[in-house]
């Protein structure tokens, strides 16, 4: 091995330690027996996971967050899949402009989207409600669904659908029997991304906080401002577990490399 290669590998190793250490520490602390958050831990216990279920705001907000993620993802699929189907076959200059527009919520500062939507939706009479939250979350989730579905559909040769039509299948039958099965991995991966994005969102949800609409990240932030105990670590660990399961599933369905290229 050349000296430069060794240097590169050492640097890469240091990089991954930097990336993983702050996360690993939190995972370990979630299993602590101590009443305070410190590392290393004096002994192992599951009591902080039990604490999650005793503290009502955690559970209430967890349920809100799960529902919100599902509703925003379903709405994103209903709006986004047709658009993705059209855009991946279109070749005009307009299609590029429209794609850019549909993906642009990803590039705008979240805090501005949240702040602006609060005033706008209040003026429309939606106020601080689950519906408002669902609308804003759909705005930020929609680009993920469009991007993944379009990437998958672009790789599908039009010949499959043409063959079905030539053999006498109608437009709808072709969609249901040919197109839909082919783009299903894209829909699944896009939905997972969308759900995780919604579930993790803080900068937008923050503006729509109330007893009925607090999401899990908002409650965790408020909790952290007053207390610094390991229950936040336990919640984070559960959340990470959920995300890793989702990632592994997405990898099986869609391929992890393709997701990174699409970014």
């Amino acid at each position, binding site marked *: 091995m050349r000296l430069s290669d060794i240097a590169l590998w050492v640097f890469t190793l240091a990089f991954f330690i930097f990336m993983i250490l702050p*996360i690993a520490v939190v995972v370990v602390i979630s299993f602590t027996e101590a009443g305070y958050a410190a590392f*290393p831990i004096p002994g192992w216990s599951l009591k902080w996971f039990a604490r999650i279920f005793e503290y009502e705001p955690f559970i209430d907000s967890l349920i809100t967050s799960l529902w919100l993620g599902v509703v925003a993802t379903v709405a994103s699929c209903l709006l986004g899949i*047709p658009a993705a189907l059209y855009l991946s076959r279109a070749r005009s200059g307009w299609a590029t402009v429209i794609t850019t527009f549909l993906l642009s*919520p990803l590039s705008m500062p979240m*805090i501005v989207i949240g702040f602006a*939507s609060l005033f706008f939706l209040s003026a429309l009479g939606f106020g601080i409600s689950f519906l408002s939250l669902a609308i804003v979350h759909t705005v930020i989730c929609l680009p993920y669904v469009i991007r993944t579905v379009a990437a998958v559909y672009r790789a599908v040769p039009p010949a499959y659908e043409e063959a079905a039509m030539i053999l006498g299948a109608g437009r709808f039958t072709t969609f249901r029997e040919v197109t839909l099965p082919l783009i299903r991995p894209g829909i699944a991966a896009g939905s997972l991304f969308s759900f995780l994005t919604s579930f993790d969102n803080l900068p937008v949800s923050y503006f729509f906080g109330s007893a009925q609409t607090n999401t899990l990240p908002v409650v965790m932030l408020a909790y952290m401002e007053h207390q610094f105990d390991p229950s936040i670590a336990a919640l984070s660990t559960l959340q990470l577990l959920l995300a890793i399961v989702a990632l592994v599933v997405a990898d099986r369905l869609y391929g992890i490399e393709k*997701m*990174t290229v699409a*970014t």
Partner: protein
Amino acid sequence: MMPTVTLSNGARRALLLAPALIFLAVFFVMPLLDNSARSFIREGGFTLSRYTDFLTDRFYLGVIAETVILSAAVTAISVLIAYPVAYVLVRKAGGFSGLMIFFLIAPLLTSIIMRTFGWQVLFARRGLVNQWLVNDLGLLDAPLRWLNTPGLAIAALVHVLVPFAVLSIASVLQGVDRRLEEGALMLGASRIRTFFEVTLPLTVDGIGTGAILVFMIANGSFVTLVLLGGGFQTLPLLIYQQFNTTRDFALASTMSTILLMIALACLWLQLRLLRRQGV
């Protein structure tokens, strides 16, 4: 009799776009326009006075400068760290590349709260880092105060953003034609010269795209700065404070419009770069 509307094939397919377009026009564009409009109205009339006030105030000019400089610094550090890692990922990792990608993406899926919590524990007064430095390595006599320092806040921001930089640089490196490098080597250029005169110039546009992506996300982030401190005064932080405490919503609208303009400028720059790459 019902009038029959005949649509061309193209027009009918364009209807597929309508739901998403209408939804984003109403619930994404309108709120942003409405928000900006509020900053141009004072006592029922149109005014630019908020912007002239804002842009001539030394404090607020400083805030804009600090926002841009902090994002630029975080971006520069992220790109410098990301390039060697992306190089190893694409050229050297071989069978390890799947594992590396997993460890790059897994942190992207953890919440900002989790990572901040981790930093707070590691760098607490009696935290792991101070224990290493004082007790194990003996480099320091007394524990250092890390929390609420600018350095730690920057490190935490880099931690959030560097995976994006690695992934976008890696995708460009993957596209470099290896024959060009082999050619340079065969003609007698050293490895280092080949890197600086062939590989690096071929990936400059990709670095640009990755850098703009990181810069855009850095520009809007505030949760890390709220929780880890560091004494920064940036536009997102001030918008957050205006909303929470001062409640001067017109000022917050002015600041968010300026932040939005910076984001739009970045988006425009990114599109230009992408077009040049012919993606």
